[in-house]
């Protein structure tokens, strides 16, 4: 079956990589960028860079306007409406650390933070370390055989002691949507704060934070075809008002003298120092580009590619998939073959996939594995990419098995 991507030519790096005989299938790690983003970056740097929210001068006004336009576009992208604010951070990891430090005062010893067994280190370690600092219990929701958070267990484990629930929308290893409505309802019934790690989820479906009803939603720009060095934290107004200021410095301050200072509310109060201005402007261009596309067509294309990928892997002997991946990516191991060997030989053949623990060591350990190979898809991939991957896989396995 031939599945061309109608958007492939919008991403110039894909053709460049192809000229170097590289097939890029590591999109859950980071994505290639659309021409619209490259144009926006060039325009900004070629027409006058300036700092934001500070100066009276014209370049400063232009930069600030472009910067704030992106904030508005992100609000629309998440359908946040009037219910909250967008804070720009230096990445999803930064956003989650901001929450873990900014909410520290919210917890008392013995309180519980609930996460799930599939969390990326970015949504595990900030809470683990907070739990250690404040003598809290970190409760880990188990998964069922398909890699979905077990709702029966969640019903038992989310209790009046739960003060915060932090879960991923879509795992970066298992490729399956998590039952967020049910989980968030359980947490809200206990008046716990809710944090959604949308780093993978935001790329493969349009999130609607009003429908989700979470207090905080976090994602990183570079996985959503945007520039790197930029994360997004959405917070509902009431939830943001619980946050204490975390990082201190330029522009987040209202009034300062040598011994005391007062700070701005969100968003600027949580954007200390010069933000990644060009990246914010670039993300705005990416969102403009994406907003003009048919989201259903993108999801249908990705779904067809994913089905092809799963089917191809299942046809081959000795391949074991991790969980029951439904979209975006597949992680797998091959019986009797070390994933480091397979990764080595795929690399030799120009197939860019990821091998290892995927920043989710506890999850991999729970499968009894040190690592796995992950193939992850984006809107610009096509069936020929998968053919090249399968050809390379067959050649590698012929050598190794």
């Amino acid at each position, binding site marked *: 079956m031939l599945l061309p991507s109608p958007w492939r030519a919008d991403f110039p790096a894909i053709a460049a990589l192809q000229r170097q005989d590289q097939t890029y299938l590591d999109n859950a790690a980071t994505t290639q960028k659309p021409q619209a983003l490259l144009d926006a970056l060039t325009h900004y740097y070629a027409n006058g860079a300036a700092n934001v929210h500070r100066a009276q001068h014209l370049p400063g006004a232009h930069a600030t306007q472009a910067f704030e336009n992106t904030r508005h576009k992100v609000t629309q992208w998440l359908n946040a409406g009037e219910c909250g604010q967008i804070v720009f951070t230096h990445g999803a990891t930064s956003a989650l650390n901001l929450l873990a430090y900014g909410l520290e005062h919210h917890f008392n010893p013995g309180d519980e933070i609930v996460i799930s067994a599939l969390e990326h280190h970015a949504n595990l370690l900030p809470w683990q370390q907070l739990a250690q600092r404040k003598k809290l219990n970190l409760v880990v929701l188990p998964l069922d055989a398909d890699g979905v958070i077990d709702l029966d267990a969640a019903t038992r484990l989310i209790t009046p002691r739960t003060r915060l629930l932090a879960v991923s929308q879509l795992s970066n290893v298992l490729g399956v949507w998590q039952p967020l409505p049910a989980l968030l309802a359980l947490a809200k019934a206990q008046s716990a704060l809710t944090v959604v790690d949308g780093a993978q989820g935001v790329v493969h479906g349009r999130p609607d934070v009003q429908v989700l009803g979470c207090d905080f939603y976090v994602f990183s720009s570079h996985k959503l075809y945007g520039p790197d060095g930029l994360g997004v934290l959405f917070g509902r107004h009431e939830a943001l008002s619980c946050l204490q200021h975390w990082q201190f410095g330029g522009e987040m301050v209202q009034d300062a003298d040598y011994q005391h200072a007062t700070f701005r509310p969100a968003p600027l109060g949580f954007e200390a120092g010069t933000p990644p201005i060009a990246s914010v402007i670039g993300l705005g261009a990416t969102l403009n580009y994406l907003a003009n596309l048919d989201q259903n067509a993108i999801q249908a294309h990705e779904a067809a590619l994913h089905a092809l990928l799963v089917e191809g892997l299942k046809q081959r002997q000795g391949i074991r998939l991790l969980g029951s991946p439904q979209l975006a990516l597949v992680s797998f191991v091959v019986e009797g073959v070390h994933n*480091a060997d397979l*990764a*080595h*030989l795929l690399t030799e*053949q120009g197939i860019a996939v990821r*091998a*290892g623990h995927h920043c989710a060591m506890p999850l991999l350990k729970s499968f009894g594995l*040190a690592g796995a190979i992950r193939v992850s898809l984006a809107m610009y991939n096509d069936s020929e990419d998968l053919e090249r991957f399968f050809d390379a896989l067959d050649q590698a396995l012929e*050598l190794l098995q």
Partner: protein
Amino acid sequence: MTLPANAQAALDSFEHCSGWEQRARLLMQWGQRLPELNDADKTEAHRVHGCESQVWLVGAQVDGHWQFAASSDARLIRGLVALLLARVNGLSTEQLQQVDVPDWFNQLGLSRQLSPSRSNGLNAVLQRMREVAG
């Protein structure tokens, strides 16, 4: 400095190697020839961290000459380590310090295996070897 005989043999076989498949087969052959470490030597203290696979390295001086032994559960890294040991085993401390390992892998047509982004662990093995040899 003349190459140790084992290193010369490696150079002879890899020099005429064309294509990734032949290179991979050769690497695996070299890996197979690497003598297995005793289980007693596969301790946490001998584990080389920073590899995708499990790698152990031990080394000792015998009559002023370094003898390293290593093992891994992955076949290609075992081959790469075998090629490293072929180059360094039998050298004095002074000779060991003079070996240009990146150049050695370059001569074998395997320079990419030492690039900083490779997590195969060859860099980590090299680092451990230097620690052991002080």
